[in-house]
């Protein structure tokens, strides 16, 4: 049994987290933990606040109140900048550089060992494309090149915003097994997706809807609690309960 509540087991501890963007509050006082060494899925529809929540954890979101501790430090602390790997939704690599030039640049900024470039190229299966210009890559190769940057310097926490969106099923399966290999090696992963099917790839789920956490459990627990056969159906059941004024 994992001893919940002992901070050593937690990569992220969030209490009363609120985020205001413009005139609108987009996250309404969230409380949850992300455990170390597992893959946690952040699932929910687009526009529900997943990306904002990830930015708050990475420390690049403004107007955040409440507690957000990451690897035992307040989110956004400068020492965290080399311990977190972050992939934004849009593939954030330089289109007018080769794959290897991109990786060498970000490795230098992170102070990662030079050998990391070859390692991450192998991990995302882009070794053959290393000298290709990023703008010539296919969509799947492009998002893997962006993922490769986040793997530099072997971060303890990987925050991946929709890393598998638009990829073919084989590639998606390969990436999820890669994520689990990192988790087995001790890394913590927080992976968002608006595709509910991806829940079955995650060790634990956080379901986000309209700026609230509506579920924080394993897939099996969620299905048992809602009496539904799929996570999609479970999400709908929870949404209906909330609409009719009940508790999730």
């Amino acid at each position, binding site marked *: 049994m994992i001893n919940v509540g002992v901070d050593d087991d937690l990569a992220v501890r969030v209490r009363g987290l609120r985020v205001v963007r413009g005139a609108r509050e987009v996250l309404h006082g969230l409380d949850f933990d992300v455990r170390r060494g597992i893959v946690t899925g952040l699932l929910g529809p687009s526009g529900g606040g997943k990306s904002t929540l990830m930015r708050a954890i990475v*420390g690049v979101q*403004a107007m955040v109140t409440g507690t957000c501790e990451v690897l035992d430090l307040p989110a956004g602390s400068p020492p965290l900048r080399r311990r977190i790997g972050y992939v934004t939704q849009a593939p954030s690599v330089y289109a007018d550089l080769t794959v290897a030039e991109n990786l060498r640049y970000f490795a230098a*900024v992170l102070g990662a060992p030079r050998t990391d470039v070859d390692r991450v190229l192998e991990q995302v299966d882009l070794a053959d494309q290393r000298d290709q210009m990023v703008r010539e890559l296919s969509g799947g190769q492009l998002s893997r090149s962006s993922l490769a940057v986040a793997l530099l310097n072997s971060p303890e926490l990987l925050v991946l915003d929709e890393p598998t969106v638009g990829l073919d099923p084989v590639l998606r399966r390969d990436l999820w097994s890669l994520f689990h290999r990192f988790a087995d090696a001790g890394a913590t992963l927080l992976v968002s997706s608006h595709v509910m099917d991806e829940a079955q790839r995650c060790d634990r789920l956080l379901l986000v809807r309209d700026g609230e956490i509506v579920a924080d459990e394993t897939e099996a627990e969620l299905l048992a609690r809602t009496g539904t056969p799929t996570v999609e159906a479970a999400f709908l059941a929870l949404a209906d309960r909330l609409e009719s004024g009940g508790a999730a």
Partner: protein
Amino acid sequence: MTAALRATTVRVLQQLRHDHRTVALLLVVPSMLMGLLAWMLIDHPGVFDHWGAALLGVFPLIVMFLVTSVATLRERTSGTLERLLAMPISRVDFLLGYGFAFGIAAAIQAIVISVIAFGLLGLDVAGPIWAVLLVAVLVAVLGTALGLFVSAFARTEFQAVQFMPAVIIPQLLLCGLVAPRATLPRPLELVSDVLPLSYAVDAMQRLTVETGVGSHTWLDMAVIAGFIVAALALGAATLRRRTP
């Protein structure tokens, strides 16, 4: 020089190197314009010397301003800036990386134009050519620093390009090339006193007629350097690690 600054300088130069057409345009267009000017003024001895040196200080401002504002805007819209600012790089290193890279590009540009202007077109200045090159590079870095700053106020590349007429053309009109600054109406003369291009053109015109580099010319260069520092500081203030 930190590793992040060196890496950023190399990275920006690599991006430029992959873009052969931009490199060709950077070198060929100003050289052709210089040739056009020499041809226009072929029957007016001495006038080309006056204008040619001044233009050597104007080209880099326009070119580097445009290149930098579009490049930085791309960093902002593609998400690479957000990613970088989540990494251990200081904002100053990011800005100076651009400054150094485009400064090096501008030095190469200025050398090529100078070889053509002084060697082929018979441009003649009284002062040393290295000082002309130094002013050209300073102006280029100024253009880069201004481009970094104003790119924060543009959301699209269309908008970024529109900042060129807004920021650069008033400086061109008031810098003393169209009418000597002392003859401007007093309010405009005061405005021209606080525009950096005035000092660049002033330095170039002094170098055209004075042998050696006088203290006034050094002062002009120091003022341009001051504007560079100020523009970079403003640029750093516009780089936010946190998304609103």
